[in-house]
Every structure is written in C-alpha cells, then in structure tokens.
C-alpha cells in the first residue's frame, strides 16, 4: 500500500501558495517588530533647567515620561540648602507617528518641580524616583549638580532688611517685625515678590490681632509673599542708600512667641525684576532681568518666664503696660449698679493674660461684682466691671492691680490703676440676691442665667397631633386627584379655549354691560354670553330662543324659567333697540337673569 504524498513542484500551484505564505509571514513580522519596539520604549528623563542659580532663585526640574500614561512621581528628594516645591503636573500630550509604515500613537507626560536655592554652595541632586511601567525607576537628573551663587548685583541694586529684631525674647513677649524692601530708583522694576519660608510656619509665633499696621504716608503697595498671598507694604519716601536714591517699601507687624525654644528664620529672598529689551509692543512679550536680594538665615531665642519671684496673682502678662480707669458715675446709691472701665495699653501680650478677678480682691469687699465684659483691640485690653457698692461706707473704687513680667528688667512688677473717689448714698437693708440673683463664683464673663419662666396661665393641654394618617393622606390625596381629574376631563379639557370662555362668560357680560348703556350693544353682549355658555359662535344666537335651546339640553324647570326670563329681557332689548319706545332693562336685572341661566342650564 502506498501513502498518497503530494509532490510539489516549484512551478505548481501548491508551491506558489507556500511561497506566498512565507512572504506574508515575513511582511507581518516586519510590521509587528516596530510595534513591539514601540511598546517597550517607555522612557523617563529628568532635566534641570540650569546648573547655575543665584541665591533665592527658583529653577525647575523637568521630568518627562514617554508611553506610560499611568506614570507617577512619588516624592521629591531632600537636599539641605535647596527647597523642593510641590510637583506641578503632569501635562499630557499625545501624537501620531509613522513607524515602519504604521501609524503609532505615542504619549508624553511632563512634570515640573520647582527648586529654590536657599543657601550658597554646590549641591548634588540625587536620582528621582519615578513610578513607571508598573515599577519604581530611579531617574538621573541632568545636570546632576546645581551651583548656587550670591546675587552680587542684587545686593547693590536691591534692599531687603529685617531691622531691629531682638536676639532673645521671653515667651509671651511681643516684638515688632519690620520688613524693608526696595530697589535703586533708576531701575524700571515691573515685578517684585518675597519668599519668606518662615512666615506662618514658625511654631509658637503668631501675629497680634488688631487693626494692624497703619501706614504713615497713606500709600500702600501689596507685595506677593510665597506666591500665596499679598502683604500691604507702605510706600516710604525715597532714601539715599549706597550713594543712590532707593524706592523703599515697609511692612510692620507685631508678633508674639508663645512658647520657649528657638525661632529659626530661614533665608528670606526679595525678587525684583526690571524690564529690559527695548520698547514693548502688542506683538512682543516683555523680557525681564531678575535680581534676588537675600537676608541670611538667623534665629531668635525664646526664653521661659522665670519661676523665681513669680507672684501667685500673675496672670501671664508679659511686656510693658500702663493702666487707666474710669467709672460711669461717681455719685451712686448703695445697691445701684455702676461700671468701672479699666484699660491696659502697651507693648505686651494684651490678648493673652488673665485680667484681675475683683471678687477675689479684699479691697473690693465693699462691692458686689456682678460680672465683667472683656475686649481687646490691637495693643489695648479693656475690661468693664459691673459693680454694686454695698453701703454708704464705701468712699472710693480701689486700685485694680495687675502683675506683669517686664522683659527689660527680667522681673515681675505690679501696676495699679488710680483709686476713684465716689460718694455712696442710702443703703439700709439691701436684698441684692432678689435684685441681681445669687452671687456666682464664675458667671461666664458677664453673662448669667435667664430668670424663671411663669407657670400660671401657660397652656397646660397637650398639642398632641397624631401623624399616623399622614402617609395615607398622601395616597388618598393623589388617588382623589386622579379620580377627580379623570371625571372632569370626561366632559372635555377644562383648560380648552371653549371651557375657559364658558367660565368667564358672566364676567365678560358684566364688563360689556358696564361699558355700554345702549340696548343694541347690550343685546349683543347677552348673545355673546349665550354663545360662550353654549360653545357656539355669537351669530348662532341672533333670533334664537334660549328656552328651546334649554329644553333641547334637558334643562330643569328652573332652567327653563331662567331661559324664559333671559329671553324676555332679550326681547325687551330688541324692542328698545328697534322700536325705541320700550324701556331698556336694567343691567342688574340682566346680570341676575344671566347668573340664573348659567347656574341652571348646562350645555
């Protein structure tokens, strides 16, 4: 037995088919090869915008990832002397590319990482960790070193100062923070901003609340700080510095260090940019030359208020204060309320100290202290005490003492208000509890309980209302609405033109009769009324008997009588119009008949 093996011949059909298959496979491989290559070509690059920067200048690291739309930058490196900002982006771009005769879609993700130079020196940038292709990849930043130099020109042409800052303060002690910035007047400066890394980020340092800095010149120039918010700088008169006139701007505020330790102020930078490059036109972007004036990092030591010599009455006041007082009245009756206003003013932590509690002072035993109101504005603390002198033996409002810690002498001292002589008359058997309520140790700063509520005559009964039928009410209401709606619409659409005309027939008749006293127009008005009620044109009612119409529509006896009455009145109107002898029926009579007709006869 022989197996049937096909013999192929180069010139045969089978041979041609085999060659064709081979050629097709080669072609397919050529087409798929670039595609496979394209799928593998996920790339990541990181470039530093410059290898040389000035102190305070911000440079950028541009990170580019190709062909992976899910790439991420997970964290930025930490390099002492450089401050890395938040990663911006990514921006995504995609484009088509012809590879080996095929169109391939490529995508590109770009991020920007701002890097601010806060110290002079040469810094090596570590590799950046990028999550790409489903795994972490370290990407080298090129160039990998950043050299930071001081901007010598900015030191000559610009101004940035934080003058008269103390090197040590006590916790709670307020001190003035002044920022002076500026530039040589001859520069055409168009942009300026401040970078103060320590602003609002120093632990325990806070600005004193209040009206804030009041500019003396009245001119204020806002300056952007940390790219986030504006600070109002006062425009100061030009000053001669380094032999040249400078434009100067100043900001002042008062701050308090609330906890002991060290306040580290990182390098502050003032960027100002002059416009260069000739005339600006509609078609050209202005170019700028930027300068970076800096103040090197410094620190302030915050000391603890000493325990030694600290009186028990000390309520946390630190600084320099003066006390003033005034009373609402110097001539009062025993048992009558009077106000004592005490104001402490000065460079101290006025917001934060505890004011004296007069109830605890023996010197105020001649008074009942009802309460007090406490407020502070800027560097002033004001407390209004509500006092009641208890007898005519009281001759003065005693001094109000306050213990403060004086940072200048590093010692505690007591300041007092001047006593206020008063005259108290009357007295006798005072029932202050009845008048002002029982005395409280702590009544919450001048507020107190509201008094009892009356019981007599108050509604004793219950307002009980059960809501158990409520949802049944909803269902019933909707059902009723549907039924009523269907029933009404069985006779036609109530909003149709004819239905609306029918409803307003009486009103139209009333209006038409009011507008004319002549019999013919009145007759026409009645015919129009009948036409509106019957849903027919007005011409259909010329010479037509309403009684017949009513009978045809099954009107009741009352309906027929109403039709007869209306017909009689119509006849009178015709007679009055054409014979001019008969009397015109009254409007009221016509309306009453029409109303009866409308009520009794339905089409």
């Amino acid at each position, binding site marked *: 037995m022989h197996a049937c093996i096909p013999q192929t011949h180069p010139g045969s059909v089978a041979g041609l088919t085999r060659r064709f298959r081979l050629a097709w496979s080669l072609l397919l491989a050529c087409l798929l090869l670039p595609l496979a290559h394209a799928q593998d070509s996920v790339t990541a690059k990181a470039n530093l915008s410059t290898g040389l920067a000035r102190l305070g200048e911000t440079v950028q690291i541009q990170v580019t990832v190709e062909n992976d739309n899910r790439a991420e930058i997970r964290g930025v490196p930490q390099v002492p002397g450089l401050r890395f900002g938040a990663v911006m982006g990514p921006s995504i771009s995609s484009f088509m590319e012809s590879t080996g005769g095929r169109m391939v879609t490529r995508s590109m993700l770009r991020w920007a990482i701002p890097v601010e130079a806060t110290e002079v020196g040469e810094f090596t940038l570590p590799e950046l960790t990028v999550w790409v292709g489903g795994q972490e990849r370290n990407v080298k930043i090129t160039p990998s070193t950043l050299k930071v130099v001081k901007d010598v020109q900015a030191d000559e042409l610009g101004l940035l100062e934080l003058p008269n800052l103390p090197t040590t303060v006590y916790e709670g002690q307020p001190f003035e923070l002044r920022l002076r910035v500026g530039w040589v007047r001859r520069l055409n400066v168009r942009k300026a901003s401040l970078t103060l890394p320590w602003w609002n980020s120093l632990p325990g340092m806070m600005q004193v609340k209040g009206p804030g800095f009041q500019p003396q010149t009245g001119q204020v120039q806002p300056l952007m700080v940390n790219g986030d918010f504006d600070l109002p700088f006062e425009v100061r008169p030009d000053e001669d510095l380094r032999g040249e006139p400078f434009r100067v701007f100043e900001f002042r505020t008062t701050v308090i260090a609330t906890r002991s330790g060290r306040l580290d102020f990182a390098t502050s930078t003032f960027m100002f940019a002059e416009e260069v490059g000739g005339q600006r036109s509609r078609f050209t972007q202005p170019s700028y030359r930027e300068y970076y004036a800096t103040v090197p990092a410094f620190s302030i030591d915050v000391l603890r208020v000493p325990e030694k010599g600290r009186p028990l009455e000390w309520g946390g006041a630190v600084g320099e204060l003066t006390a003033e007082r005034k009373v609402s009245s110097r001539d009062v009756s025993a048992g009558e309320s009077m106000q004592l206003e005490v104001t402490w003013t000065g460079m101290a932590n006025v917001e934060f100290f505890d004011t004296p509690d007069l109830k605890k002072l023996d010197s105020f035993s001649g008074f009942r202290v009802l309460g007090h109101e406490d407020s502070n504005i800027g560097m002033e603390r004001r407390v209004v005490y509500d006092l009641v002198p208890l007898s005519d033996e009281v001759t003065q409002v005693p001094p109000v003492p306050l213990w403060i810690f004086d940072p200048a002498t590093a010692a505690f001292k007591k300041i007092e208000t001047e006593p206020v002589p008063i005259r108290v008359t009357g007295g006798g058997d005072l029932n202050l*509890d009845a008048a002002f309520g029982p005395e409280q140790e702590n009544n919450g700063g001048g507020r107190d309980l509201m008094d009892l509520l009356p019981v007599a005559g108050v509604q004793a009964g219950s307002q009980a209302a059960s*809501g158990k039928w409520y949802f049944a009410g909803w269902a019933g209401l909707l059902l009723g609405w549907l039924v009523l709606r269907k029933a009404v619409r069985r006779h036609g659409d109530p*909003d149709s033109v004819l239905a609306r005309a029918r409803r307003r027939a009486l009103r139209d008749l009333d209006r038409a009769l009011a507008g004319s006293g002549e019999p013919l127009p009145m007759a026409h008005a009645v015919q129009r009324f009948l036409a509106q009620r019957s849903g027919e044109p007005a011409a259909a009612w010329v010479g037509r008997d309403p009684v017949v119409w009513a009978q045809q529509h099954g009107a009741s006896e009352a309906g027929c009588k109403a039709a007869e009455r209306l017909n009689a009145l119509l006849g009178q109107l015709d007679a009055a119009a054409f014979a001019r002898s008969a009397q015109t029926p009254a409007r009221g009579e016509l309306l009453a008949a029409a109303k009866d007709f409308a009520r009794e006869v339905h089409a």
Partner: protein
Amino acid sequence: MVSFSKQVLVLLLGCWLLPLAFSAPVQDQERLSQEAEEAYRRGEYEQATTLWQDALALSNAEAGTSALRGHLLYNLGNAAERAGEPLRALAWYQAALRHLPRDGHIRHNRDFVRGAQGLPPADGDGLGATLRAGLRAFTPAESAWLAYGGLALLALALGYEALRGGRTARRLAWLAAGLAVLLALPRVRWMLAPPGPAAMVIAEHGSSLYSEPRGDAQSLVKLEATELVEPLDHWNDWTRVRTRSGQEGWVSSVRLQDIWY
C-alpha cells in the same frame, strides 16, 4: 324611669363640671409653682426643686408636649444650676427643650451652662448641624401639624389643577408638592428617630458602662458627661441603658438624670 328633662339637666351639669375637674390639677400646679418660685427667690433651691417636681407630677406625661411642663422643667434646670449641679441643670434644660424646642430662654441657659462647663455647643457647627437643628426645632405634634398643613396646601393645588387644568395650575401643584415635602421633613425626622425615654449622664467625668449591675463588673465603655442614653431597665440603684451606638450595659442610677417628662 328618669324623665327626659332630668336627663338633660344631668348632662348639662356634667358638661359644666367637666372643665372644673380638669382645671383642678392646673390650679394645684400653679400654687405649687408659686411656692417653688418663692423658695427659689429665698435661695432654698432644694425646696424649690421638690415643689416643682410635685407640680410636674400633676401633669399627664403621656399626653404629649405642653408649654406648662416646658416651663416647669426649665425652672428645675435653673434651680439645679443655682444649687451647683450644672450637669443636672443641663438635663432639665434638655427635657424642657422637648416641650419647647425653640424657646430662647431654655436655649440661652443651656448654652450658658455648657459654656461655663467648657462643653462644646450643643447644636454643633456647620451647615449640616444647622439643618439638623432646624429639623429638631419642632415637637412631634408641631411637625405633624406642619406636615398636614403642607398636605392641605397640596390638596388645594391638586384640586385646582383637576378642575381647571392648564400650565399655571400644574406649576402651582408642583410648587405645593415641593412645599409639602419640605414641611414633611420634621415629621419624617421624628419617624426615623421616634421620641422615647432618654436619660443624660450627669457625672462630671462621665461614667463607665458596666456589663453587670455592680461596680466591680467589667467596664465596657466610657460614657461622656451629657451623653444621652436610652434607659431599658432598673435594678436597685442601677439602670440598664442602650447607648447611641447600640451598646447595652449598666450605669449607676445616680449618674443619670431622666429627661423624659
């Protein structure tokens, strides 16, 4: 057989005497309250509390809410606060608010006492808290009346729509439907959280929730001061309660103040 005229006479007499029968407890309540107020003014807060509690006992607690009981509970709160029991006062105010949820006096005193005790505001902050406070500003009865009012408005609007039709009537019906839903919200709130017996933790530092009614039992959780719990059972000086999170356990009764009056 009693004659018809006599029957009528007895009926009339009954109708005349019936209001008197109901007004007697009210008069007693007013008398007791008067005495309580006098004791309060004299600074005898325990005596005032006892008298106001007696007056409170004369009213029918099952009959829903009433302004009278709201006032009595508020006065009890004042007496407790003056007697140096601020947390008990808060419990009384909370009980009073169930009867008069929008009363300015009660809210003021509650907030005052909370502030003096360093407790956070009862109603909280933010839009959500404000909306919840708005829903709580009505008693169950008031919320039912509001809901029925909304339903009546809707009935009028739907009736008009059924009889007259047209775009204006349809718009009115939608408007009334929206209003009815809005007015039903307090009612829905009460349905979701029906009013029921509640008690407040009045111990200054809170209280432990014990697994059994004895002090050496296992402490399940710490209940904060002014926390509201649902009393379930009593055994000697212990109360079995359920917390808002659904946990059940025993609390010493002296650390609780009933606020369901």
